[in-house]
């Protein structure tokens, strides 16, 4: 199975080359890959599933584990089968597109990710493919990225799904932490561990967030209709059978784990129902083919969530049946819509009429899939709807919602699939004509599917749907034929059709009616989302302007403030010890201090003060020099002649440099405002105090250290030198010195370069 998935990615990489070679025929040739996968999965279905595992990152619990059960295979077959049709279709639809190769690259990469997602048997592996579908679909939706609309739609889709994806990731990490394993098939077993665990609700909410964003549930639905900016084949593929069904798949997969969780079920039922109504109503109000289909897709996804939320055997069975039916007819309708658009250059349903004569084959396909969507017997859509009704009857409220949705489905089906082909032809931008086979064959195939399975529902049940349902529930079901649903269900279906027909004829009035709801648009989730993003960017800008303001002294203030705030508390925490040290020190100070040392201290103090206060640069530099020479004297007094000499010469050179450098600079500017100054004074003071305390703390220990003894013992005998400091510099710790002279060299080169390398146009060589 790993190979099956990888073949998809391999095909993606090869696609551009094939495209370059095959030209017009590309679609047909490339379709061989998904077609082959389709057959492969059929074989797996016959074999009753398969398992394969390979380690990836065991430390993290990530493994390339794949498992094909009924549910996975249902999805896999849809993905590969419809994938093949879409491949053929887009070969014709985009035949003269300059970047057809890239198109197939993205398409196959997406298909492969989708297959991986439904076959994965490992939490993290599932997530990895989940994210892969997110950004491959991003590339598909934004395929025409020269248009602003496409870019925006693609970005929105990516961000919404990615946000959900991160919620999902968080949920999965917590889940894995609780259950202690990341295998999906093992999950059902660990349901016990989760029961009554504090993190349970969090996990449920996070997983649902992931599923809802991906499957465009209200209020996260808005990216889906916008994603119609994608070329039609992509829309057909993403929104009929794949991308948006990933969330549904996740919910189905997780069903055994949360079978008895109230939050899980209510969440699904409520949001599913809301999505169904919202999507249906918005769909009825559309006039453009693709948008109408998009909203009806949203509604359909609502139905599936709703059914999985109910979670009874019947409901799950109905869910998979409806899922299958929807995949067939929705893909068909999208493809037909695309064909019509392609052939006439017209997308507005109000200006499409009487195309049946011009494009009979397309019309035939359209009629069948549309009627299947409407739920007209004997098409499979009818069977599926029977199952659905039977499943929801238990609760009147849910039933009402479902029926209402079904009515709107009838409307949409007739409006998109039937109306444009009947009546008197209108003239369209392009003269209507039957498009090339690659455009009418795929929809026709899907229509045939809807028709065929309508006649043999039992066969389909046994072969595919019941195993799928079993995959969801974790136990197998008894086959349930039509007879199971009583007359009530049948009556409802009939009524749905009649009333739906009525709504269809009244659709213009309905649209007008719904037009009145524009007032609500500020509250539309999409606007809220956009406002949220804008707010985020604004806040980001505000905080960045606030802290990254460009004033060096502001930065330094924060740094030193942090220094004090980090060290002072520790010193306070150990104040007794610090106190003891201070005490002993002050005593020793009184006893041992000598006169010239006090004088030296005063000299230092005065000259330091002078450096701060001098009004002219040269005076300040002179004061700095005094400080330096004071240091040298200290070194002499406390047994460090080498230091004294070095310090003395260096100080001299430094002063010369300072004079050379400041020669050009203007006089000191007037000091900043007093408020600042007092603040600075406080900060500087506290830094000084902290450092002084730390020095005392350090000097508290007994010396000389073991190192000191070792050096003075071995300096002569092993280091051949009586000046221990020098021996340390050139032998014991010569590496320090090496680094140090490197610093010097770099400093010199740097200074030279800074002074003499000038950018072009500013004199000097470039």
């Amino acid at each position, binding site marked *: 199975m790993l190979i099956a998935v990888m073949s998809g990615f391999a095909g993606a990489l090869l696609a551009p080359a094939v495209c370059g070679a095959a030209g017009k025929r590309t679609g047909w040739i490339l379709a061989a890959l998904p077609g082959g996968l389709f057959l492969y999965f059929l074989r797996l279905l016959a074999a009753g599933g398969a398992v394969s595992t390979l380690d990836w990152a065991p*430390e993290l619990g*990530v493994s390339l584990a794949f498992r094909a059960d009924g549910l996975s295979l249902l999805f896999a077959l849809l993905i590969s089968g419809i994938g093949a049709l879409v491949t053929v279709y887009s070969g014709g639809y985009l035949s003269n597109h300059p970047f057809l190769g890239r198109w197939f690259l993205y398409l196959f990469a997406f298909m492969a990710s989708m297959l991986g997602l439904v076959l994965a048997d490992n939490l*993290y592996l599932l997530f990895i493919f989940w994210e892969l579908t997110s950004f491959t679909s991003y590339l598909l939706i934004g395929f025409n990225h020269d248009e602003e609309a496409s870019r925006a739609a693609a970005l929105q889709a990516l961000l919404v799904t990615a946000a959900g994806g991160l919620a999902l*990731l968080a949920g999965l*990490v917590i889940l894995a932490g609780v259950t202690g394993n990341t295998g999906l098939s093992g999950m059902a077993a660990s349901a016990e561990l989760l029961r009554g665990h504090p993190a349970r609700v969090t996990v449920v909410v996070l997983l649902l967030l992931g599923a809802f964003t991906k499957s465009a549930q209200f209020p996260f639905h808005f990216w889906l209709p916008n994603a119609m900016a994608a070329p039609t084949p992509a829309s057909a593929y993403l929104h009929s059978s794949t991308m948006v069904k990933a969330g549904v798949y996740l919910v189905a997969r997780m069903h055994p784990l949360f079978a008895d969780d109230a939050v899980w079920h209510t969440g699904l039922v409520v949001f599913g129902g809301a999505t169904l109504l919202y999507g249906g109503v918005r769909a009825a109000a559309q006039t453009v083919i693709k948008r109408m289909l998009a909203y009806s897709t949203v509604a359909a996804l609502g139905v599936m969530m709703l059914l999985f939320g109910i979670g009874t055997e019947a409901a799950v069975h109905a869910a998979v049946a409806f899922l299958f039916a929807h995949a067939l007819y929705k893909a068909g309708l999208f493809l037909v819509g695309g064909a019509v658009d392609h052939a006439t250059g017209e997308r507005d349903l109000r200006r499409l009429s009487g195309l049946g004569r011009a494009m009979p084959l397309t019309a035939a396909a359209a009629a069948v899939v549309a009627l299947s969507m409407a739920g007209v017997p004997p098409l499979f859509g009818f069977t599926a709807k029977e199952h659905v009704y039977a499943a929801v009857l238990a609760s009147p409220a849910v039933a009402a919602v479902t029926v209402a949705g079904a009515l709107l489905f009838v409307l949409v089906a007739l409006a998109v699939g039937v109306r444009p082909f009947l009546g008197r032809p209108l003239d369209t931008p392009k003269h209507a004509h039957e498009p090339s086979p690659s455009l009418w064959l795929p929809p026709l195939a899907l229509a045939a599917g809807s028709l065929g399975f309508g006649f043999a529902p039992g066969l389909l049940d046994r072969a595919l749907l019941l195993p799928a349902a079993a995959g969801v529930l974790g136990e197998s079901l008894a086959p349930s034929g039509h007879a199971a649903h009583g007359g009530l269900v049948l009556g409802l279906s009939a009524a749905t059709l009649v009333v739906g027909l009525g709504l269809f004829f009244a659709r213009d009035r309905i649209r007008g009616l719904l037009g009145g709801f524009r007032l609500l648009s500020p509250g539309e989730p999409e606007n809220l989302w956009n406002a949220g993003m804008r707010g985020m960017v604004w806040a*980001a800008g505000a905080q960045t302007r606030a802290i990254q303001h460009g004033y*060096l002294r502001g930065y330094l203030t924060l740094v030193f403030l942090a220094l004090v705030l980090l060290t002072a508390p520790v010193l306070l925490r150990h104040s007794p010890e610090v106190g003891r040290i201070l005490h002993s020190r002050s005593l020793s100070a009184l006893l041992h201090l000598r006169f010239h040392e006090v004088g030296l201290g005063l000299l230092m103090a005065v000259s330091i003060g002078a450096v701060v206060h001098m009004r002219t640069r040269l005076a300040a530099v002179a004061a700095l020099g005094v400080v330096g020479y004071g240091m040298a004297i200290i070194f002499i007094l406390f047994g460090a002649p080498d230091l004294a000499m070095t310090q003395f010469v260096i100080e001299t050179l430094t002063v010369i440099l300072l004079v050379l450098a400041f020669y050009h600079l203007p006089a000191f500017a007037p000091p900043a405002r007093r408020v600042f100054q007092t603040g600075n004074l406080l900060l500087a003071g506290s830094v000084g105090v902290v450092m002084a305390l730390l020095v005392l703390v350090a000097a508290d220990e007994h010396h000389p250290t073991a190192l000191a003894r070792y050096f003075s013992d071995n300096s002569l005998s092993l280091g051949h030198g009586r000046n221990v400091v020098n021996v340390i510099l050139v032998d014991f710790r*010569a590496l320090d010195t090496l680094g140090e002279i*490197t610093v010097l060299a770099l400093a010199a080169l*740097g200074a030279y370069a800074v002074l003499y390398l000038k950018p072009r146009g500013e004199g000097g060589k470039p």
Partner: protein
Amino acid sequence: MSLPLTLPLLVPLTGAVLCVLLFRSPGAQRAVALGVSLAHCLAAAALFAGVRGGGVAAVQISGWPAPFGITFVADLLAAVMVCAGAGMGLCIVVYSLFALDRGRERFGYYPLVLALLAAVCGAFLTGDIFNLYVWFEVMLMASFALMALGGERPQLEGAIKYVTLNLVSSAVFLSGAGILYGRVGTLNLADLSLAVDTHLSPGLLTAIAMLFLVAFGIKAALFPFFFWLPASYHTPPTVVAALFSALLTKVGAYALIRVFTLVFSHDIGWTHPVILALAGVTMLTGVLGAASKYDFPKILAFHIVSQIGYIVMGLGLFSAMGLAGAVFFMVHNIVVKTNLFLVAGIARRLTGETHLDRLGGLCRARPWLAACFFVSAMSLAGLPPFSGFFGKLALLVAAARTGHWTVFTVAVVVSFLTLYSMTKIWTHAFWKPAPEGMPDPAPGRDPETDRAVAGMLIPVTALAAVSLLMGLGAGPCMRLALDAAEQLLDKGAYIRAVLGEGAA
């Protein structure tokens, strides 16, 4: 192990010296730089092989027994970092051969780069706190010079802030080292580790630890010390920015990890929550900065800050998985971030622009470049199957296991914002058609540019591939990171390697 431990320092240092002596002929310097960086990679590989096989290795430089001389130590972390550093060095040098202007070459670009590499490796390998200071200074000095090299106004403005804040850091570092010696009486890290454990009053050592937190925090661009980075990183040529982002902040992070695992792990209850908090804030402020900017390199610069937060978060969690995540993330980040800067450099070369409003059309014009960027960007945003995802996953798992839910949440939110700012670049610079009046980046306009870009794409492609491989090969990489982490948590091996079997 004497030779493999010394060469990663010695090779580039010698190369730098040779380049200094060859200051009259840039051509010769290019040759030396290329050869040396190749040799450097080999040396690093040898070191890694030795450590992977034989465990922690140590050599007493100038032959004096520890703790009296200076010890070079290589555990897995150090070895991995040296390899990463050498690899980046090679990429940078190759890129520079095609990208750099004559002026900078004449004024010592190559010696500075090689010295920087040497210093970085010295910092990774040294087992002595003061020697670490010295290598930090070498690194800083080289970076100062590189930052200002070229003398354009933004460079100088940025350099002033960069230099000042980093000199403050050095002063704090130096003070910390001095106080530590005064208090504990040794400079050797392993010896310090022992001394701290057996110290009479470890409490006050925490205060010293805080000094190091500040010093390394500034180097690593941790909140609230990172301001120098967004102020300066976008001003020099992007290849220099790439070099910095690859190594400088990472050395700071490395020093934090080293010191706060080996030496200052006596007061975890106090120090590591602080570190964790800083890490969280760093992630957030950094990525918000990135979200608010519309300049290609500036966005990347803020991202460096944000991701230092991730790395330090691993340290703050202080569990094997956390440290492993930190190590993995650090290497991943070195690769990816360097690559993004290099891509930005190509974009600038093609259009002469870095601002997103004036960039565009790169996806149509340069699909290969676009692909490389896309891989790196998605990897940075932590999307699978690239390296970033596994680093993020490891850190999240670690946070969940240790029950740090706040930082867990922050990390998740931050990765969303990261994705946002990356797609911002992608949408504007690559998808959007080239804006009016901007030069068309498509090939064939200027053969010289095309040739240069072709050369610059070599390292870019290589790095993108590495990021992908680190994802696909996440298993072994994570295993390696975990081994490194376990070495960090068990100080015994390190101490014994330095002070001999008797110790610890």
